[in-house]
């Protein structure tokens, strides 16, 4: 038996479907699902940006009634963070390979996208957690300064900072776990296929 002998077998296997009603229902379901997913993605993207942008007027208002330099610096850090975080997220979403590209072209773009997302999640401390944490600490600490401009750390404040620190560690670990579970295997899968293309 030669490989060409199996062409007929193959053609039979991929024969067009006979059951049109079932197919119509399936296509309708797909269309509804696509619409729903698109709406959800759009809503999530808008929400992410809106939350950050809506906080800016609040921080700006804080600047006018700031208790001192430390608090003002903290508010500026928060304003910059609220502009930088959505920018970083939007930039990462721009690398989106189209599905109708060639397999090789798609895989190269997908590899680039996955690396970017992986880096983004792994560096969440630098662009997300640290600016927010620094901003919050400076704002709250700035509110406790005495007449000489020296901050007074109370017991409650120390507990609050410890709680914030633990929260940041938890967020960091959860992101790291997500990167290891989601992006690493997918990246490996894409790299494996690219290697197969170069065989």
């Amino acid at each position: 038996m030669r490989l060409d002998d199996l062409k007929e077998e193959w053609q039979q296997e991929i024969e067009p479907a006979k059951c049109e009603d079932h197919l119509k229902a399936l296509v309708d379901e797909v269309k509804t699902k696509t619409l729903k997913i698109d709406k959800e993605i759009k809503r999530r993207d808008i929400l992410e940006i809106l939350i950050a942008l809506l906080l800016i007027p609040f921080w700006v208002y804080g600047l006018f009634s700031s208790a001192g330099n430390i608090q003002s610096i903290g508010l500026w850090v928060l304003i910059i963070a609220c502009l930088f975080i959505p920018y970083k997220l939007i930039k990462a979403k721009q690398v989106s390979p189209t599905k109708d590209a060639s397999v090789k072209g798609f895989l190269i773009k997908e590899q680039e996208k996955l690396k970017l997302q992986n880096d983004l999640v792994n560096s969440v401390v630098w662009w997300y957690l640290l600016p927010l944490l620094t901003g919050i600490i400076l704002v709250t600490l700035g509110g406790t300064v005495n007449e000489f401009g020296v901050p007074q750390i109370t017991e409650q404040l120390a507990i609050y900072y410890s709680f914030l620190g633990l929260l940041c560690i938890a967020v960091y670990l959860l992101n790291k776990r997500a990167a290891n579970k989601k992006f690493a295997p997918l990246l490996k899968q894409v790299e494996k296929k690219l290697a197969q293309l170069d065989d």
Partner: protein
Amino acid sequence: MSVEFEHVIANNQGRIRYIAARYCHHGEFDDMYQEILLQLWRSFESFKGNSARETWLYKVALNTACTFVRKSIKHKEIKQTVAEQFIQENQMGQEICQADVLNSFMNSLNDIDATILMMYLDGLSSDVSADVIGITANAVRVRIARIKNEFENQYIGEQS
């Protein structure tokens, strides 16, 4: 456009099902099949006919299958063979000798070679396959020759 899309899917359902079956893991055939349809529909809206419909369909289906995010990647590494799934669904009660051979050979190949073989059996030219995969037509021909050799080494003389 909706009717046109249904028509495209009806004519190519076998191809899409085969690609989904080849790439999916155990118990995820339906999810992958639906994901391919979803991506085809998404892409169909912007498909301007710059390439042949068959080329477009193969590209979208393969690219979707290649990067399909499995629900639990680490627990589902037991790959269900195409022979197990596709034959069960489509060849019940029929003579499955040749299908069996074809599917077990397909499973012995890596994903890219299996894809090239799929397109070869489908009657697509080397140029079209090269366009789908993104390598040169010459590279496709070399791979087909290698696949043929491999097949003949494995199965020649087993059946007449």
